[in-house]
């Protein structure tokens, strides 16, 4: 998948993954895609909820060795 920015938020706990994601979104344009890496298991629900609140779209997510990856398109 095309990614315009990668954010490594591994090791950070709530609420920092969404806080850092917001910052990263501020740095890209509408329609561009942020790839987020987090180890916070709460993120599985939190990132989609945050994205809906902030009008972004989660395009895909995967889990790999305890790392959750999300591809989020800026709305």
């Amino acid at each position: 998948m095309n990614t315009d920015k990668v954010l490594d938020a591994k090791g950070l706990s709530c609420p920092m993954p969404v806080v850092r994601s917001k910052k990263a979104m501020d740095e890209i344009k509408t329609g561009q895609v942020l790839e987020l890496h987090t180890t916070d298991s709460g993120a599985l629900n939190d990132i989609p909820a945050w994205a809906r609140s902030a009008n972004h779209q989660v395009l895909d997510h995967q889990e790999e060795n305890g790392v959750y990856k999300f591809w989020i398109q800026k709305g």
Partner: protein
Amino acid sequence: MSKKVAIIASNGGLFDAYKVFNIATAAAAADSKVAIFFTFEGLNLIHKQAYQQLPIPSGKEHFQEGFKQANIPSIVELVEVAQDMNVRLIACQMTMDVMNLQKEEFVENVEIGGAATFLHFAQDADVTLTF
């Protein structure tokens, strides 16, 4: 139009601080306008000295280790994050008068206000929370 989240912080312990600032920063991250009204013991949460060492409820001291292990940001860091995301911090004037506290004793950019200041913000808030 962005949502508004109005929070009252009226308790001064470490757990109270996390409840307040986690919700506030998460809301700000979702592009909500956030204001927190700090009243009574809640003023500890933005007091330059007090907020560096907020009390843990007695009998729960062992959670201190859990905070470290889970890599939880400190309250000092969370206040910085909140301010960076334009969360309004409003200190209750009346409590300051009662406790003889001065504006200089609080973190930078705290607003001083009364009940009416907070209510003006809260009256059309989408979410209102009290901690």
